[in-house]
């Protein structure tokens, strides 16, 4: 599970971690009954106070997304109806970021929505020029 934290993000760290877990669930890199990295491992990887990771895990447990197996660690919960909730929460976070970016460039909400549909339509027409490939290209 790849977790990255954005230093510019104003949200509390534990919320960011929770969202990253949700993202993994929605993407499928984390499935039901999969183990989450231990608090120690994740904290060390992110260089974050382990208490923050614990807090994130506890909140996820409270929401029923994960559960704790005594002596073995934290695991993704078996039921999968939450998928819908997770998708919604994730989509919301993505939309928020898109809006911020749009505003910074002086674009309005309707403009953005229209353009998103246009680009998606282009993608279907020419798969090689898909947003995903463009993203990869940007990275290189």
């Amino acid at each position, binding site marked *: 599970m790849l977790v990255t*934290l954005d*230093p*510019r*993000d*104003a949200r*509390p*760290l534990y919320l960011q971690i929770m969202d990253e877990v949700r993202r993994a669930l929605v993407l499928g890199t984390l499935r039901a009954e999969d183990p989450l990295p231990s*608090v*120690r491992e994740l*904290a*060390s990887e*992110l*260089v*974050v*106070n*382990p*208490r*923050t990771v614990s807090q994130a895990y506890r909140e996820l447990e409270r929401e029923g997304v994960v559960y704790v197996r005594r002596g073995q660690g934290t695991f993704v919960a078996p039921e999968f109806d939450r998928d819908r909730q997770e998708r919604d929460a994730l989509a919301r976070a993505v939309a928020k970021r898109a809006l911020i970016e749009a*505003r*910074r460039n002086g674009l309005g909400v309707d403009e953005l929505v229209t353009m998103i549909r246009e680009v998606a339509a282009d993608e279907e027409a020419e798969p090689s020029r898909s947003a995903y490939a463009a993203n990869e290209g940007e990275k290189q």
Partner: protein
Amino acid sequence: MSHSTHPASGDEGFAVTTHALSKRYGGEPALDRVELRVPEGAVYVLIGPNGAGKSTTFKILMNLERPDSGSAEVFGLDTGRQGPKARAQVGYVPERQDSGYRAMTCGRLLQHVAAYYSTWDHAYAEQLTRALDLRLQRRVGGLSKGEARRLQLVMALAHRPPLLLLDEPTDGLDPLVRKRVLALLTEHLADTPTTVLISTHHVYEMETLADHVGVLRDGRLVAQLDRDELKRTVRRYRIEVPEGWESPPEFRVAADASRSPNRRELQWTLVGDERSVAEKLALTGARVREVTSLGLEDAALAFLDGEVTG
């Protein structure tokens, strides 16, 4: 005006408390009525320009220096009157340290220090030594600055103290080792209930690890708050200003205030609740175009440069 969060009630739950701590060197105030509050279990980073203030705080907590006035406590133990007991709770990495044990090997020095701490974990010390690439047969007198620092880290962590006082712990270490030290520190926090008070020039390293921040300026603690509140109250504002607009007197211009060529756009780092700041700006005729939050370092440094009241 101080931006701080500490409970109005007593000092329970704090690993470190100072009461009106003051210290002058010559004419300069290194510490001026500092009220430090480090909650238990917190990772508290002390930020400030180069000066005696930060190191002096550590030295007073270790009773190596005597304050001119005020007092300090570690877990409720007065650092002056109960010095030895207070120090037994602490793992200290000082700025520099000279010991008379030049002829000793590192391994022997670790054994020496181990004799003073009943909670010394030999297996853990070994683990730390390996993780930090310390060669135990080297003589203490012949260590480089980086090696000495790594040795001090082992000495501080191995007895699993409830409080770590780290004065520039990564100073003199190359970037790769610094990363390893931070990872070790994080793992240490996972295994041991510990509070950390750390001062460092490389604030960006503590970007994610720190959950509390204290900013010392001219000896005064101008800010002391947890990271969430810091992130909430310090923002960079991009505002559009009308022609001939002058910054009103109550907004002190922060160092990175920049104007775009056509003098219509301004970028400011301001401290305060976002809504009230935006309102204030609007009242002066400026229009807020964008607000971004900052990384920990930039946010904390804003307190060193300028403040918004209210």
